[in-house]
C-alpha cells in the first residue's frame, strides 16, 4: 500500500534554521520568493545559539587601523594559504555590512565608551575585531533572525523535520523528502532550488563542543547526489574544552576567556605559551594553542583530570562576571568551580569543520545544479584553520549571498514533478529501519565516535589513521543490519540510524583525506610529516564514484596580484 505524505511546494527550500539558513531565508524573502525553512531541532535552538565569543568584522571601532584588507590577510595567513581567496575577500569586505544590518534587525551589541559597537581581541586576528554580546553572541543572532523570519508572510517554517534525502532528476536537485518527527509524518518538498544550511559534523567525535544535531547530515545528503566534499581533513580542535566532571567533557570554554586576558599554565605553573609562541602567546591561532595544550598534557605536565589550567581569576570578580557571565555560571553550576577565585581545567575539544561541500564563492552553488550550501556545511573560506568569530561572519555573509544565488537560479528554474515511485522508495527505505531486533545505531555511533577521538585527533599518524579507516569500513559493512524498534513518531533510534549513514560519509572523508595529505598544515598535523610542504598547496576533494569514495586534488586557486600584496609571503 502506498504511504501517505504531505506536499509542500516553494521556490526555495532551505534545510537548516541556524544563522546561515535563516539569513538565506531573509534574502530570498526580500526578493519576494516563496520560501520553506526546515530544521531538525526546534526553531530557535539551532547549534548557532551556542556561539559565544563574537562575530568578526573590521569595523575599526576599537583599533582604527583595522580594515577589510587586514582581515583578508589574516584569513589567508591563518588558513595557511589553502583558503579560497574570493570567499575570503567577500567575507572581509561584507562582514561589516552584515553586522550593522543585524543591529538594524534589533541585535544589541556591547558598546564602546563613545557608543559604537565594541570589539574584542581573539586569536589570530591582528586587531580587536570581534563584535559581541557578552558571551552570548550566537543567541542574540538566532533570536534576532528568528524575530525577522517569523514575521515574514512568504516564509514557512517547519521544525523538528528531518530531511532524509534530496531528490534529483536530470542532473538537478528538485526537492527533498523528510520526516516530521513530532507527528511521524512524511513530507515531500518540491523546490526550484535547495539550500543546505545544515551546519557541521562535530558530533562524529566523542569529545566535542557541538550540539546533538551536528552530525554532518548535509555532507551525506550532498555527497549522495554527487556534490564534492573538500578539505575534510581540516577539523578544528578548540584549545579549551571542559575536562571535568565527565558529563561535561568537551563543553566549550570560550576563547573570549583568553581574549579578555586568560593565561594558560601547566601543572608546574609554567606559562607554557611563552615557549610555543613567544609573541602571541595565548592569543595565537587555535591550531597552535590546541597543539600546545595537547603536548603539555601528553608530556606529563597535565592537571589531575588530564587538562591544563586556564586562569582569569587574577582579573577580579567584577570583571569576570561582567565580561564572561555565562562562563562564570557554566563552571559554577556544572563543575562547582568559582572561576573568579580558582583556575579552570581545560583540554582540546572537537569544534568545527573547516571542510565541507564545495561551493561557488559568489553564489554558493555546489557542483550539482539546483543545490546550494552556506555556513559551516560549505567549504572554502577557512582553509586549514578557522579564526574565531569568522564563522558567525561566514553564516551571515554567505547566508545572504547564497540566498541570493539560489533566488537568481530559482527565477529561471521550474518546479519539477517528482516521480511517485521515488517518493515511495525513499519512504520505504526509512521505514525499513523500523524492526525490533537489529543492531542499535547508538552502539555503532559510540564505536565510531570513540575511534575518531582516539585515532584522528590533533596529531595524526598513519597507523592510527588506518585503524580508524578499517573501523569505518567495518561499520559500513554492519550498517545494513541497523534497526530501531518503535514507530515513526519521535523515535530517536530511527533518527540515529539515519544520522549514522551521514556520520559514516563524514568520517570516511575526514580519514581518507587525512591519510592523503602528507604534511602538517593548520589543523592537520602529521607526526610522520611534521613540516609544511609546498607541493601540497592543494585542496583535497572527495566524491562518490559508483558507490566508492574517490579522492582528487586541485591546486588552490591563485590569489590575484593586487590581493596578494595584502598577504605575507608563505614561508616553508
Amino acid at each position, binding site marked *: 500500500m502506498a504511504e501517505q505524505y504531505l506536499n509542500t511546494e516553494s521556490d526555495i527550500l532551505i534545510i537548516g534554521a541556524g544563522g546561515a539558513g535563516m539569513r538565506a531565508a531573509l534574502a530570498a524573502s526580500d526578493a519576494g520568493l516563496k520560501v520553506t525553512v526546515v530544521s531538525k*531541532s*526546534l*526553531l*530557535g*535552538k539551532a*547549534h548557532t*545559539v*551556542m556561539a559565544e565569543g563574537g562575530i568578526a568584522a573590521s*569595523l575599526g571601532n576599537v583599533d582604527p587601523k583595522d580594515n577589510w584588507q587586514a582581515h583578508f590577510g589574516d584569513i589567508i595567513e591563518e588558513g595557511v594559504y589553502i583558503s579560497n581567496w574570493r570567499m575570503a575577500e567577500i567575507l572581509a569586505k561584507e562582514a561589516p555590512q552584515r553586522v*550593522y544590518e543585524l*543591529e*538594524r534587525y*534589533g541585535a*544589541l551589541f*556591547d*558598546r564602546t*565608551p*563613545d*557608543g*559604537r559597537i*565594541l570589539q574584542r581581541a581573539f586569536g589570530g586576528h591582528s586587531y580587536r575585531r570581534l563584535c559581541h*554580546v557578552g558571551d*552570548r553572541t*550566537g*543567541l542574540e543572532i538566532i*533570536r534576532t533572525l528568528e*524575530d*525577522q523570519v*517569523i*514575521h515574514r508572510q512568504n516564509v514557512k*517554517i517547519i521544525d523538528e523535520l528531518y530531511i532524509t534525502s534530496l531528490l534529483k532528476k536530470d542532473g538537478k536537485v528538485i526537492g527533498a523528502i523528510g520526516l516530521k518527527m*513530532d507527528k511521524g509524518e512524511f513530507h515531500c518538498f518540491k523546490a526550484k532550488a535547495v539550500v543546505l544550511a545544515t551546519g557541521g559534523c562535530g558530533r562524529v567525535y566523542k569529545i566535542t563542543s557541538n*550540539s*546533538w*544535531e551536528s552530525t554532518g547530515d548535509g555532507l551525506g545528503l550532498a555527497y549522495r547526489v554527487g556534490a564534492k566534499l573538500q578539505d575534510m581533513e581540516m577539523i578544528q580542535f578548540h584549545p579549551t574544552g571542559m575536562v*571535568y*566532571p*565527565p*558529563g*561535561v567533557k568537551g*563543553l*566549550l570554554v570560550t576563547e573570549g576567556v583568553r581574549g579578555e586576558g586568560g593565561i594558560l599554565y601547566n601543572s608546574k605553573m609554567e606559562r607554557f605559551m611563552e615557549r610555543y609562541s613567544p609573541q602571541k602567546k595565548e592569543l595565537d591561532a587555535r591550531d597552535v594553542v590546541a597543539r600546545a595544550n595537547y603536548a603539555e598534557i601528553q608530556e606529563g605536565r597535565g592537571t589531575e583530570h588530564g587538562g591544563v589550567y586556564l586562569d582569569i581569576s587574577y582579573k577580579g570578580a567584577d570583571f569576570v562576571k561582567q565580561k564572561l557571565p*555565562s562562563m562564570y*555560571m*557554566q563552571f559554577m553550576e*556544572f563543575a562547582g568551580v568559582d572561576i573568579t577565585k580558582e583556575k579552570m581545567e581545560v583540554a582540546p575539544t572537537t569544534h568545527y569543520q573547516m571542510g565541507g561541500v564545495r561551493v561557488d564563492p559568489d553564489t554558493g552553488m555546489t557542483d550539482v545544479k539546483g543545490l546550494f550550501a552556506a555556513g559551516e556545511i560549505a567549504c572554502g573560506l577557512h582553509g586549514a584553520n578557522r579564526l574565531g568569530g569568522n564563522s558567525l561572519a561566514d553564516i551571515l555573509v554567505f547566508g545572504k549571498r547564497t540566498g541570493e544565488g539560489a533566488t537568481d537560479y530559482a527565477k529561471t528554474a521550474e518546479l519539477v514533478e517528482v516521480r511517485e515511485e521515488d517518493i515511495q522508495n525513499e519512504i520505504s527505505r526509512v521505514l525499513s529501519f523500523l524492526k525490533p531486533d537489529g543492531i*542499535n*545505531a*547508538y552502539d555503532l555511533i*559510540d564505536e565510531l565516535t570513540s575511534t575518531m577521538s582516539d585515532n584522528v585527533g590533533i596529531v595524526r599518524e598513519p597507523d592510527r589513521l588506518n585503524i580508524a579507516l578499517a573501523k569505518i569500513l567495518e561499520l559500513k559493512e554492519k550498517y545494513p543490519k541497523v534497526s*530501531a*524498534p*518503535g*514507530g515513526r*513518531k*519521535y*523515535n*530517536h*533510534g530511527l533518527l*540515529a540510524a539515519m544520522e549514522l549513514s551521514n556520520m559514516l560519509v563524514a568520517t570516511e572523508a575526514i580519514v581518507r583525506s587525512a591519510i592523503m595529505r602528507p604534511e602538517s598544515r593548520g589543523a592537520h598535523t602529521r607526526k610522520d610529516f611534521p613540516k609544511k610542504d609546498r607541493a601540497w598547496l592543494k585542496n583535497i576533494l572527495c566524491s562518490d564514484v559508483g558507490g566508492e569514495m574517490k579522492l582528487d586534488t586541485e591546486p588552490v586557486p591563485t590569489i590575484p596580484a593586487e590581493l596578494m600584496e595584502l598577504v605575507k609571503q608563505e614561508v616553508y
Partner: protein
Amino acid sequence: MEEKIILNIYRQDPSIEQKGQLQKFEVPYVDGMVVLDAVRYVQEKLDTTLAIRWNCKAAKCGSCSAEINGMPRLMCKTRVDTVGHNITVTPMGAFPLIKDLVTDVGENWEILRKIPKFTPREDMESPWKMQQMDVERSKEFRKCIECFLCQDVCHVIREHSTPYFGPRHVVKAASMDMHPLDSEDRSRMLDQVGGLGFCNITKCCQDVCPEHIHITDNAIIQEKERAVDNFYDPLARLIKRKKTKERSVA
C-alpha cells in the same frame, strides 16, 4: 560496586495510549552527571524509543525542559547529586504532550508572531550610537533561551483559559521595548490582546528561570506600569517615554 541511580520516567504516546505511566530504569552513576546524561543513557542503551528533546547540553538552547521531581528545570543543567538518587522525570505539564518527555511548545511561536518586531526610530544616523548603560537594561531579557519553563510554572496558563501570553512573551516584548532605539510601545497590546492583567505577580516564573531573569520585577511590572500610564495619562507617558529614549542616545 558500581553506583546506580533510579530514574522514573513518564511514558505515554497520547495518540495510542489514554494514560501514561512512570517507567523505572537503573542507570550507572558517573561523577558530576546531569539528569540529561542519565536520561540519554536510557535512550541510547536501554530503550531507544524513549522520546526526549535536547540539543546543546550546555544550558544554552532551552530544549530539554522537563519536570524533575515536580520542579520545572532544564535536564542538562540539573546535576544528579543535587536531586538525589531516585529521580522522577515528567514532561512539562502546561503543554500538550507529544510523546514521553516531549511536549508541543509550538503555540509560543504563534504568540511571538503577534508581538511587533523591533521597529527602529527613523531619525537615526548610521552607524547607530548607544550607551552601554542603556543597552544593559534590555540585555537581561535577551538572555532568554526560550525554555518555556516560566510558561510551564505559571498558574494562569496552567489552570485557566485566558488570553494571557505568559511570562516568556512579556520578556520578549520588554527586550524590544527597552531597546534604546525602538519606537514601538508593546505594553498596550500586551494589556489589551495579551491579557497582561491576568498576571497577579506571584513571581513563580522568575523563581524557575534558568537564566535568572527577573521576569516579574523587571519585565512584567514594568510593562504593567507602562500600560497603566498609557491608559490614564497618555500625554505624561509620552513625555516620560521620549525622555528615557533621548537619554539613551549618545
